[in-house]
């Protein structure tokens, strides 16, 4: 194989890795949008808080002398999910629930305020500097011609794919099989009717926030370990990218969010391969603008009819 092919292959692998974490975050946007039709702007900050919690747990456990890496990582994942979920729940309870049923612009402004608040709250509590952690999982599989170009799939990338696959499958099963999942789908179809049928819709909405936050926390742990550095500002960009992914796949549709995330990740990686890497953000945003202009329903979304 030629050098370019191998190089593109490497970028594809990197893109799929980033893309699967985008997909995890995007689900939080898409589920909330599907049920109450609002953009939860603070979702990116929930992801950032998940990363911080994971770092704190990992370093704390290592300092305490817990040697086994799988146990440390599992505990970090669980802690991050619990803390992020409580943030997701609290945001919904404090900032969005009292505004339900009002004009659409109001919760969006609250969400932006919440996002700024959380970002600065973490900045004040944890400092604004970049924090770096040495790689816990190194090594990987290498193939290709060592003299031309060597393609690497690191163990970390394989873990990211595996965990993403497990989380997605669990979510799909939960939504399609469980009682609560059915209630979620009913809420997405018709909130008022679901309420009339005796389902506590407030609890279902809180549940979607919790699920979204938990998946964002999973993405936070994975990306935190993958990059090894964090700062309080990572949530903003990650949130925007994930939102782009959700819109690309068709907002409101869960398979759409998965597809959109992967597509966005790959597009970004390929852009970074052939252009200066600063322009990959420009490509992501231009993609967002173009989809919204020419196909606002996204790839898998359903058209929305505005009712009087």
């Amino acid at each position, binding site marked *: 194989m030629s050098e370019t092919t191998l190089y593109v292959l490497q970028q594809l692998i990197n893109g799929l890795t980033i893309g699967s974490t985008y997909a995890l975050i995007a689900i939080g946007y898409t589920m909330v949008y599907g049920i109450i039709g609002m*953009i939860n702007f603070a979702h990116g900050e929930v992801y950032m*808080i998940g990363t*911080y919690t994971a*770092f*704190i*747990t990992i*370093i*704390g456990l290592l*300092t305490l002398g817990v040697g086994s890496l799988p146990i440390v990582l599992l505990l970090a994942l669980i*802690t991050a999910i*619990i*803390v992020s979920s*409580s*943030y997701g*729940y*609290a945001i919904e309870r*404090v*900032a969005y629930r009292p*505004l339900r049923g009002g004009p*659409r*612009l*109001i*919760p*969006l*402004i*609250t969400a*932006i*305020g919440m*996002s*700024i*608040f*959380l*970002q*600065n*709250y973490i900045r*004040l*509590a*944890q*400092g604004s500097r970049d*924090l*770096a*952690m040495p790689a816990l999982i190194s090594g990987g599989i290498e193939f290709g011609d060592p003299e031309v170009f060597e393609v690497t799939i690191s163990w970390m990338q394989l873990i990211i794919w595996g965990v993403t696959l497990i989380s997605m499958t669990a979510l799909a099963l939960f939504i399609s099989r469980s009682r609560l999942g059915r209630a979620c789908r009913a809420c997405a179809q018709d909130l008022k009717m679901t309420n009339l049928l005796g389902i506590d819709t407030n609890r279902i909405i809180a549940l979607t926030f919790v699920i979204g936050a938990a998946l964002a926390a999973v993405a936070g742990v994975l990306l935190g370990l993958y990059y090894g550095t964090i700062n309080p500002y990572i949530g*903003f960009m990650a949130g*925007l990218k994930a*939102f*782009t992914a959700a*819109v690309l796949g068709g907002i409101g549709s869960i398979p759409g969010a998965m597809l959109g995330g992967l597509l966005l990740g790959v597009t970004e990686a390929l852009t970074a391969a052939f252009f*200066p890497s*600063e322009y990959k*953000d*420009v490509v992501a*945003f*231009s993609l*967002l*603008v173009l989809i*919204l*202009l020419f196909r*606002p329903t996204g790839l898998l979304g359903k058209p929305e009819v*505005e009712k*009087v």
Partner: protein
Amino acid sequence: MQRALFPALFAAGVTFLLTCLVIGVKLEQDGPTLTVVGADAETWSWIAFAVVVVFLFQLFQQPLARLRQRLPTADVTGLLPDHRLRTRLRPWLIALVVVGLLVWPFMVSRGAVDLATLTLIYVMLGLGLNIVVGFAGLLDLGYVAFYAVGAYTYALLSEYYGLSFWACLPLAGLLAATFGCILGFPVLRLRGDYLAIVTLGFGEIIRILLNNWTGLTGGPNGIGGIDKPSLFGLEFSRRASEGAQTFHEFFGISYNSSHKVIFLYLVAVLLVLITVYIINRIQRMPIGRAWEALREDEIACRSLGLNPTVIKLSAFTLGASFAGFAGCFFAARQGFISPESFTFIESAIILAIVVLGGMGSQLGVILAAIAMTILPELAREFQEYRMLMFGGVMVLMMLWRPQGLLPMKRPHLELKSS
């Protein structure tokens, strides 16, 4: 009480989860190694305090709500003079404010005048965004992009072609308006929340382009040495450049650097007064009425034969042009600009000003801009908490008083039974 116990315990538990790991423990970078440090006893006692407060509040929520209902609400409307007196006093009041604005800088320190100039820039930005968000109800999260366009227009034209501030001011407004029009035309068909995200993306694109187009904009290093405005060709520097005269030479007074600061302030006052006047007039024109009608009900508007695209586009363009003027003035005042000054946070601050002031209310926006720029300066130790407060204020305002501190009053007539 018994029934409130479980939710109260739950809320207290959630509060503990929110705070214990994030505030109670701190990550510290020590060279290549990362360590965790537990917070001191004081922080932990604050966390405990927060948990107890949330618990008690949830437990006694219903009795508290009942108590609040029984409290009499103060009626402040009676304190204002009646309508006819107010209309008669109005021109005098405005004249008083204008004279005050013009005389005030000669009596205070240089720093205070400089701060006032900065405040006036925010007033202008707030008023401009108020057209888009407050009147037309379009949430624009990339407003800072137009501000950047205005600033870079002046900086680049003065650097490459040596154009003066006064020549660039209309050009900056025009160019920002063109940008607003070009962006707005395809985007304004979108529904409210999509529009917000697209404008946010646009703002980021502009910033990234400015940052990376090093050949033209100087990239992250920015552009320095931008000329200050002059008074009919009279410069405010110590020594005149070729073929020009300085202010102090012309009037035969000794050089004083505060002349320049005061002049900049007066230019800002002039710009703000023009902005206020124009917006005040347009608001009463058919187009201004159409903005508000469109904000209230788009479908009803369309069925009355108003073209929503044209109306939205006019609001967007006009709002952008004011950002362009403000940007041009900002570049002249700073003398140096870089993409750092045009981040999303800046957009969010301007939005917070509009939200706090009461969407659509001009006086409210002006007061909010003053409060938002001067309060953090007065309390220096609060500087750290500035953005935290901005975020918090945005949330609390929307929850308690979505119409803002000074909501817009619509002129209305009442029939009085005699």
